[in-house]
Every structure is written in C-alpha cells, then in structure tokens.
C-alpha cells in the first residue's frame, strides 16, 4: 500500500476560487500553557474530516418543509482503533461556538439510564 501517492481524495474545492486544492494541515499555534498529553495537532487527515463534518452539521434544520423532512446533519466516523476518531471529534468541538456543547456518551453493556 502506497500512502504517499496522491489521489482525488487528497484534494478539495476551494470555496472562493473554486480551484482544486491539496489538503494541508491548518495553521497551528501552540497554546501558552502546554499540557503535553492534551495537545491536539491538526493534520491534513483531520482537517479534511473536519471540513465534511462542519459542512454537514451546518445544513439547514429542515430539508423540506412541506414533506416535513428533517435534514440529516449527523456524521459517522468509521475506523480501526487508534485512527484518531476521538481526537478528530475533540478538535472539531474545540471550534464550537458559545452555545454549542459536546456531549460524549459511551455505550457498553454497563451503560444504564442513570449514567446520564
């Protein structure tokens, strides 16, 4: 498997110029107080996942009023262990506005309604 080879999946369409652009990690400035274990540094991979999540999450609430259809604004991240699914979501949540909250729910056989 050659990871280095580029394909269409490494590109996106720029919002203003509408040109193909290669995914690059967004600029990252280290915070003043560094807790090393909590550092999340964006990569090209995480940035492109975030882009889709953000766009899907920003869809209007209703897809069609007359048919009473609700927009599908949910994202599902699929991947093996350690492929930075959680970190991706955490990075996404870091950019939330004031009124948005991240709620993490862990489902297992031990989950009961009382956990929430």
């Amino acid at each position, binding site marked *: 498997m050659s990871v280095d080879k580029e394909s269409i999946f490494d590109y996106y369409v720029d919002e203003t110029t509408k040109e*193909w652009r290669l995914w690059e990690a967004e600029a990252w400035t280290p915070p003043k107080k560094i807790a090393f274990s909590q550092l999340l540094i964006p990569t090209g991979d995480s940035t492109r996942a975030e882009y889709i999540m953000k766009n899907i999450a920003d869809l209007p609430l209703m897809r069609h009023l007359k048919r009473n259809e609700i927009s599908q604004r949910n994202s599902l991240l699929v991947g093996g262990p350690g492929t930075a699914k959680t970190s991706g979501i955490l990075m996404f949540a870091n950019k939330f506005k004031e009124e948005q909250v991240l709620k993490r729910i862990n489902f297992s056989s031990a989950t009961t309604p009382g956990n929430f």
Partner: protein
Amino acid sequence: MIMARTLRDMNLSKFVAQDVPLFLSLIKDIFPLQTNIPNKVHTEIEKKTKGLMLENNLEDVKDWFIKIIQLYETSLVRHGFMVVGTVGCGKTTIMETLTKSLSLLAEDGNPLGALHKLQRMNPKAITTPQLYGIINPMSGEWVPGVFSEIWKKSNAKANKHISWIICDGPVDAIWIENLNTVLDDNRILTLANNERIPMSDNTKMVFEVENLNNASPATVSRCGIIFVSPTDLFWRPLIRTWCRDRAQDKLQSSPDETSWCEEFTEKYIVKADLNLLLNRDYHYVMSAPEVVRITQLLNLLTALLTPDITAQKVVSKANFEKLWIYCLCWSHGGLLEQDDREKFHKYLESRSAPLPPITA
C-alpha cells in the same frame, strides 16, 4: 375469474420485484381461460395521490405508485399489515402520502376518504413492560405502558378519525407475540392487569420493518404484507426531487443546475454503471446501499453550495462539476480503504473528470 383476481390482488404486494412477473405467469397457467383479468381502479384516490405527489415534488415512479395503491387495498381488507423494505425505499413516504391523500379526500367531502392520524412509535426502544404496562409486584399497582395507552386512545369509541398505530422498528418474537390476539379475528388486546380492550374499526396496526427474519410465522400469517423492493423507487428520483425542491425554493446555485445534475448523473453514475462497479470490485468498510450514497451526495452538495447561494453568486458549470466530483468521491468513496480510493481515482480519470493536477 373472481378467484384469479383475488389470488392476484392479495398476493402481488408480497413479492419482491423480480418475482412479480413470475407470479403473474403462474396465475396465467392456473387460469388459462382468464386472459384479461381487470384491475380495480380507484380513480379518485389515484388522482388525489398523484396531485399530492406533484405538490410535494415527489417523482411519479410507476412501481412505487402501485405500492401506494396496494397499501390502500390492503388497509381496506386487513386491520394489521406490515410494510417491509430496506432503508430508503420510501416506506414512510408511502404511508404518509396515502394517509394524507385520504384525509384530503375526506375534507373534500368524498365518502371514500377519511381523516387519518398516524401514531408512530419504536417498540424496540423500550422494554416490554414499558410497552404493555406492568403490575408492581409489591403494591399490586398497575403501571400502564406506552402501547397500551396509545391503544386506549386510538380505540376510543368517540373517535371520528382513523388511527394508524405504526410500530416503526424491528419485529421480533419478544414483543409482537403479545399482539397475536390483536392481529387475528379476536381483535382484543389483553393486558397483564386482565384488562381487555377490543379494537374498534377505526384503528389499524401497521408495522414498518426492514425484514421479517425474526418474525414468527404465527405473526406473519396474521398480517397483510406489502413488500417494497429497493428497485421500486431506486435512487434516481432522489436526485430529481432534490432538483425540483431547489427550483421551487429558488435556492439554486445556477439556473441550469437541474440539467447539470442530470448530465453529471449520466456521465459519472449511469453510463459506466458505477453502482455495479462499486458492488463488484470495491470493498466497503461498512455496507452502504445506493440510496444512502446518493443521499449523502446530495446532502454534501447542498452544504457546499450554500455559501455561494447566500452570497448570491452564480456557480459556473466547470466549478459545479468539480464540487460534484468532490461530493461523489466522499459519498461513494468515503467508506473505502486507501487501495480502493486509488482505484476510484483511476475510475474518475477514465471518465475524464476535471481532476486536480496530480504530480505523483
């Protein structure tokens, strides 16, 4: 003749799309003298339904429309029926369109119509005691359940409307066996506190399920079945409805958007038979049927075009195609591994898509 017609009309709705012609020829073999069995025509209901579909921007697909009529016919003769079909085949829309058009007919004063109300619930989201109610073993107190309460309300004698209780969730033996007395000719719900609530004529039990793998024959034989094949509707109408919605809401990125959508669908999906290709040569991390992929494509496309629409900028065709490619990649190829993604890239190259200049 009546025999042949009954056999046909009562069984046709249960078959998968491929088996329908087979069954029709079987009927022909059994009744060789009946060459022209007439169809029952519900002129007014068909007209109303078609009008409603047009108003809701729904595509008029023949096979799918037949399902609406089959549902109507089944609802006339049965008090319990199941609408079976895979995800995205339009089960919910079938029901909503039919009940809405019947309600509209009633408003027009047509005796064929009746006011319908839908009560939707997911029986698998709650436990059986929560569904049917339970007697507290300590105090002997009766705690009613969700279903028993809906049942009481829907079966009240004073009701003027027809209620459909829709159980939208997988069928299995745990909860549905308790409904056996309801679904057969007794039509009585017996609760654990010995309460017996008879079913009135204004109530229908509807089950909306994906498959009947876990349903027992006892239940299935008591219900009318309408099977909606994924090919009845398929994914093409989704794109057309999407285009029509946008044209109506004046939310198009360009006046030619509809024709572009048609063109690019032809170019990238239909001509090269992309769906067949994906099913045969590509390995998905998790299953995603055609309908789901197309929905994702349209959702993503909506999202990406929104900034331009709010800024009232017109997107050119070349740019629209780029966005289309991007969305196609992520909706159809998002669930692929790296190897397959490269293969997908090659596929797009072969379709002469406007790809980025790739150096590798």
